[in-house]
């Protein structure tokens, strides 16, 4: 027997009293149990963006090449010749904490469906991961599970994972972050949308059967804080089936190949059948009638409530026409998948659901989506924020041994090589990967064309903690800089905004400031937002994470042959710094690692100068003046120089560097700042390179020469670093495996 709906039951479903009243008002009566389920998931934070929507409006979503901004399953950008890039990023934080392998795997499955729903074939993925400290008992287990889960799903379905980031910090001890990005390619005329137009058209369910898994999974898990009570929410984690998803992918792309067969299509993700039917109808201003008896079920005795809210994976909802319905069923049959007509599009504006001949729900589609609650939640600068900004440099002891410090940094958990992780990902399948993981941005070619795309994902959450607006600007700047270092210019940006509990004014303040920063930087750097995701409630027992607005950016290269990598190439090449050498200890990795301090105001970015730098890097690449370019970020100048020496897939090569340093040695070597790029160039290119830099008003400093088997750095006349490259490289490469082994 289904419980009768009361206000208390609504509260237990996560609706507030006001939200419940609003639902009653929208219906003009007390909701049925199934309807209560529908309202509760549709108006959950995860599905409705009720706390973030008013702020997200501030993001720049216009661009010359933008075809589809936020609002669809993924963003679409034109890249010429009638081809579009379709991409998006999603979080799967809570499920991955509970069941790391399956949580991460189904996260990948979900983002891939968002892409192929649009008619695009996914061709590359990224992942951005945050874990707690190694002292936390679950950390190693979570890392192993998450990485294997991403690998297990992505490798099997055959989409290469070409890049990402992974950081460790105690603020993620109880709340890891698993953000996954995917990009697909489609011909413009084959882009499909999630609209249910054409009253009378059949609504088709395709893919895996529906089970009881994940009822209230993504929606509720991600819409409240995490605590001991979450234990009872546990079975909401699903098991992914990448094989079925691969079949679903092929079948969907096959039916979408010929125009007009599919009217609209949307995956069943969070909130399952409910969300897809309501959203598709709302977008088209139509309605739908759905017969739950036609839904393929995996288990017996499922109730309408369960069928509507199940988050079983690997399912799609399509709208065809009476003429094309057969074709759709044939294609799915070819791929051995269930496809069944579960209903019709109507012109009533309502989604009506039937079960065993009875109506179990009758809800207004439009009201559920567009009249969802929206909150401008109170926000206030945290009382502790000001104190964080103070960094008394005089109490910090300067380093004595630059070489030892560099060794310590380069083998530290956050700066050592990520090879241990990315070799578990198939990053080469589809044979497009021109620049593999291990450089500033990955580059993939597009077969049959000369062009290529560059991909990167970045966020320094410590900067965001110290100054959310500046931190967000810095994250966008770094992403764009990474693209520039690959020789690419930004096509568009997608974000994944990971924050704590939005009902806390301090968290809301962090959120608002971060949005401001992203908006600013994306505007100046010409990298519009095409879509994204908000993940709130990343809190456990009252403790929130560092604000982490992850930024993924897609760049364009007219000619794949112009792709640059970060490592030095040739003995005798000259090493230049483009940008101001001065770095700051504020918020630096050095300060955190060696002094246990997270303080200071991160060096702000001057976006106009940043843009000028990126333009310059691309210009000198285009004129063939430089052979490598590397962004200088965490770990400062010295660590970036070391990376230039040791990250080449082939043989490593040293360099002799001379810095005209004044002041603190730690600041010169390990201070951090935006707007700095290390390039290497043949000696004969020097004059032209310098001339171009001057013309662009970008500072240029000749720092030294590539060559030998050691990295030596002289600062202010003293030799401060002298490191043999081969063992340094071996140590840097082996470090992560060592840290994770325990």
């Amino acid at each position, binding site marked *: 027997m289904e419980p009768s709906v009361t206000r208390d039951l609504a509260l237990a479903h996560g609706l507030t009293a006001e939200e419940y009243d609003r639902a009653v008002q929208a219906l003009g009566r007390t909701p049925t149990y199934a309807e209560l389920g529908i309202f509760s998931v549709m108006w959950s934070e995860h599905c409705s963006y009720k706390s973030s929507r008013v702020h997200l409006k501030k993001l720049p979503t216009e661009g010359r090449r933008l075809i589809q901004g936020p609002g669809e399953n993924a963003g679409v950008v034109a890249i010429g010749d009638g081809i579009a890039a379709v991409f998006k990023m999603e979080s799967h934080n809570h499920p991955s904490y509970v069941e790391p392998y399956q949580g991460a795997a189904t996260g990948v499955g979900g983002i891939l469906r968002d892409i192929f729903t649009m008619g695009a074939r996914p061709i590359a993925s990224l992942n951005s991961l945050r874990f707690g400290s190694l002292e936390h008992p679950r950390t190693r287990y979570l890392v192993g599970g998450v990485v294997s889960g991403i690998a297990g799903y992505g490798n099997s379905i055959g989409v290469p994972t070409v890049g990402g980031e992974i950081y460790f910090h105690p603020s993620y001890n109880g709340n890891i972050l698993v953000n996954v990005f995917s990009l697909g390619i489609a011909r413009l005329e084959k882009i499909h949308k999630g609209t249910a137009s054409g009253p009378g058209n059949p609504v088709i369910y395709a893919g895996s059967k529906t089970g009881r898994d994940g009822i209230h999974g993504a929606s509720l898990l991600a819409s409240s804080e995490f605590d001991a009570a979450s234990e009872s929410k546990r079975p909401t984690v699903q098991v992914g089936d990448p094989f079925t998803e691969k079949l679903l992918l092929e079948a969907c792309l096959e039916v979408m190949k010929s125009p007009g067969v599919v009217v609209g299509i949307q995956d069943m993700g969070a909130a399952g059948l409910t969300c897809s039917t309501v959203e598709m109808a709302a977008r088209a201003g139509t309605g739908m009638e759905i017969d739950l008896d036609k839904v393929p079920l995996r288990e017996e005795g499922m109730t309408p409530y369960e069928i509507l809210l199940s988050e079983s994976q690997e399912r799609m909802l399509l709208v065809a026409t009476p003429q094309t319905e057969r074709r759709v069923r044939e294609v799915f049959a070819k791929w051995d998948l269930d496809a069944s007509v579960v209903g019709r599009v109507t012109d009533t504006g309502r989604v009506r659901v039937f079960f065993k001949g009875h109506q179990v729900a009758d809800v207004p589609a439009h009201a559920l989506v567009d009249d969802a609650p929206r909150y401008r939640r109170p926000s206030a600068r945290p009382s502790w924020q000001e104190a964080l900004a103070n960094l008394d440099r005089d109490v910090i002891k300067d380093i004595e041994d630059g070489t030892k410090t560099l060794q310590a940094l380069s083998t530290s958990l956050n700066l050592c090589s990520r090879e241990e992780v990315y070799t578990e*990902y198939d990053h*080469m399948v589809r044979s497009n990967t021109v620049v593999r993981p291990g450089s500033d941005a990955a580059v993939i070619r597009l077969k049959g064309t000369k062009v290529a795309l560059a991909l990167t994902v970045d966020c320094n959450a410590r900067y965001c903690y110290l100054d959310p607006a500046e931190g967000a600007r810095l994250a966008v700047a770094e992403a764009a800089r990474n693209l520039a270092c690959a020789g690419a210019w930004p096509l568009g940006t997608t974000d994944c905004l990971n924050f704590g509990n939005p009902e806390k004014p301090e968290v809301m303040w962090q959120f608002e400031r971060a949005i401001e920063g992203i908006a600013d930087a994306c505007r100046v750097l010409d990298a519009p937002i095409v879509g994204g995701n908000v993940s709130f409630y990343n809190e456990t027992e009252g403790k929130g994470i560092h604000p982490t607005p992850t930024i993924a950016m897609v760049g364009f290269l007219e000619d794949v042959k112009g792709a640059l990598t970060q490592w030095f190439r040739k003995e005798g090449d000259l090493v230049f710094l483009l940008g101001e050498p001065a770095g700051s200890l504020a918020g630096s990795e050095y300060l955190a690692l060696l002094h246990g301090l997270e303080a200071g105001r991160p060096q702000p970015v001057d976006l106009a100068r940043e843009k000028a730098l990126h333009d310059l890097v691309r210009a000198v690449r285009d004129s063939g003046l430089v052979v490598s370019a590397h962004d200088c970020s965490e770990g400062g100048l010295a660590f970036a120089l070391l990376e230039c020496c040791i990250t080449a897939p082939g043989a490593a090569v040293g360099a002799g560097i001379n810095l005209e340093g004044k002041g603190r040695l730690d600041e010169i070597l390990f201070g951090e700042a935006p707007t700095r790029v290390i390039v290497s160039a043949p000696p004969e290119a020097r004059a032209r390179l310098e001339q171009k830099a001057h013309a662009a008003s970008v500072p240029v400093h000749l720092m030294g020469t590539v060559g030998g088997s050691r990295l030596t750095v002289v600062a202010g006349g003293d030799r401060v670093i002298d490191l043999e490259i081969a063992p340094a490289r071996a140590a840097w490469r082996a470090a992560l495996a060592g840290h994770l082994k325990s």
Partner: protein
Amino acid sequence: MKFGIVVFPGSNCDHDVYHVAKHVLGHEAAFLWHKDTTFAGVDCVVLPGGFAHGDYLRAGAIARFSPIMKAVEAFAARGGLVFGICNGFQVLAEAGLLPGALVKNAGLKYVCRDVYVRAERQDTPYTSRIKQGTVLRIPIGHGEGCYYAPEEGLQELEEKRQVVFRYCDESGQVTTGSNPNGSLRAIAGICNARGNVLGMMPHPDRCAEEVLGNAQGRRIFDSIVYAWEQARRQRI
């Protein structure tokens, strides 16, 4: 010549092989659907990489029963070229077209990276343009690539010179450190006694073009084409 590329549900390197055959080599290529029972006009059948049937149960275990496999077996029995790459190798082993089995990597993890392999003989259609002892750099991408056969089986392989590729270091030395998955006798690829069926774990299809930074895998495809042309000339 014409390459026929088998598409199992879950194959994911089918397009990569197609691209190499058609656009890099400039030969003909066609997909062969796993549910078909026959094919015609094909000179070399390729079983591509991927996760046929999800590799659930064991890699290749279910795919070997696909209807197309009877035709592939018959084609091999007539001396036709059958080339299994990665998952394709696993399918051939499960189907008994090649001896032994491929089990979980010794490190238990999927591994995607470049490895070096040494060509152990030139007198196969797959190495006809590669001198014995040549070291090739080719990427791998697999979780179950550890070659296993019982001791007698290994001896027989060696006696009949069926080991075609062995993992080695850059200089061609077979060392423990250069074996990425624990394969017995560092076996990366083997052929049948007749030499017309080859299976290998590394992916020459992922390194057949300069734009990808490595074109050494192309030498295996060039060998196939060369051998086929030689054979055709003899027939004429």
